[in-house]
């Protein structure tokens, strides 16, 4: 199918974009990368009255670091984060580990991180990282600006706390301390598929004991979630990893955290090729492996 007819504007400033979004009687959609929106318009699952193309809005493509925070504008493409140097320190490494899992280079050249947060697909890599690392989503409307904490932002599959007349102008991530170890792993049937399960993790340690643990889970519930119960199991535990090539013993804190993430934190939905029981098994294994990857970063 082809997209149904719609009106189109390409504003040059944020204010012009906000004015266009303010017409809440109509179905108004923001076009940034368009890699999900235009697909949905092809299938006519979305038939907007008005498309607001923000690609010519000045300043939204900025990526800036200040005061221990990185701010990523609404037009920063996925592909930027393939380089671990795009963002300093462990966060840049985590973004790079995740970015290569997002579709393919031609999609990553168009799609944006903020667009993924706005779309809020339950399998979105960036959504899990935003949750795990306490990102803040900056939104603006003609009525003013506000900041939404990632933990308050995701309301369900494709549902967020953004109001219809609000534009996400950027997302801000606090930069983790330099010694933080990060991990990201994803499981899917083929490279073309969405993640059946993906895990983002960040670990910090003091005096050999885990002092902070953050685990974000993708496609493990109807929305991206944080594995709080699994994180609690890790705090205060000794940070160790088995020698390269050796399995995690069943009693290892990472293996236990994986089991708890799968059994207590996750609420996987049935989907073709992966029933909930299978997905819980994958979650348990993948959380363990991702924590191990993060711990190796701490111990290096």
């Amino acid at each position, binding site marked *: 199918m*082809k*997209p*149904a*007819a*719609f*009106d*189109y504007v*390409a504003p040059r400033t944020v204010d012009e974009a906000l004015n266009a979004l303010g017409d809440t009687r109509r179905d108004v959609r923001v*076009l940034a990368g*368009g*890699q999900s929106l*235009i*697909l949905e*318009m*092809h*299938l006519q699952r979305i038939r907007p009255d008005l*498309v607001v*193309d923000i*690609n010519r809005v000045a300043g939204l493509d900025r990526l800036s670091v200040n005061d221990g925070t990185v701010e990523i504008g609404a037009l920063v493409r996925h592909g930027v984060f393939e380089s671990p140097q795009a963002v300093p320190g462990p966060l840049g490494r985590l973004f790079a580990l995740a970015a*290569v899992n997002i*579709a*393919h*280079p*031609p*999609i990553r*050249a*168009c799609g944006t991180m903020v667009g993924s947060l706005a779309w809020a697909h339950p399998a979105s890599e960036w959504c899990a990282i935003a949750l795990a690392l306490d990102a803040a989503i900056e939104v603006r409307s003609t009525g003013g600006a506000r900041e939404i904490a990632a933990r308050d932002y995701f309301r369900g599959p494709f549902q967020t706390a953004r109001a219809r007349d609000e534009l996400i102008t950027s997302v801000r991530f606090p930069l983790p301390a330099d010694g933080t170890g990060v991990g990201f792993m994803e499981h899917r049937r083929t*490279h*073309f598929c969405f993640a059946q399960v993906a895990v983002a993790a960040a670990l910090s340690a003091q005096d050999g004991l885990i002092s902070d643990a953050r685990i974000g889970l993708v496609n493990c519930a109807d929305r991206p979630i944080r594995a709080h119960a699994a994180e609690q199991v890790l705090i205060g535990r000794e940070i160790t990893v088995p020698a390269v090539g050796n399995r995690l013993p069943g009693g290892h804190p990472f293996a236990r955290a994986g089991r708890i993430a799968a059994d207590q934190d996750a609420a996987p939905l049935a989907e073709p090729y992966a029933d909930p029981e299978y997905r819980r098994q994958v979650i348990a294994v993948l959380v363990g492996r991702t924590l191990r990857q993060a711990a190796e970063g701490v111990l290096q």
Partner: protein
Amino acid sequence: MKITLTVNGDDYPLDVEPRRILADVLREDCRLTGTHLGCEHGVCGACTVLVDGKAVRSCLMLAVQCDGRSVRTVEGLAGPDGEPHPLQRAFSAEHALQCGFCTPGFLMVAAGALEADPTIGDDPERVHGLVESNICRCTGYEPIRRAIMRAAAESAFADPSGGGEEPAAGGRPEF
């Protein structure tokens, strides 16, 4: 809506509905049917073209988004005298196509990647990652990977010290 697309260096002043995707406008309005449409939802990669030098899916981009931007399609690869592009020669030499439906997409994704970073051709893993973005149901991908690596090695970007048998470049398109 009135727009101007620059396709392969030529300006096309067009009047298009906003709902029309770039691939359809290239094929139907610009009459450049080398760009193929397979899945029309961003999976198969047959419609890949370069917009401002970057490989993109022309089925997931509106033509109006490209107003004033520079588009390059498979018709823009060959030189002005019709001399095939190094990638096209390599695809032929390595039998990297059979039915040919996916070929324009593979050529453009490879052209975009090699122009941005010619060293991709030196690393089989990166070439593997590149061809992963497109679907070919004939070749099994291996000849396509070989062709991209051959083109990279034989192109103007190859290390001059290693290119002893390199023919003279007379008017041939470069990456």
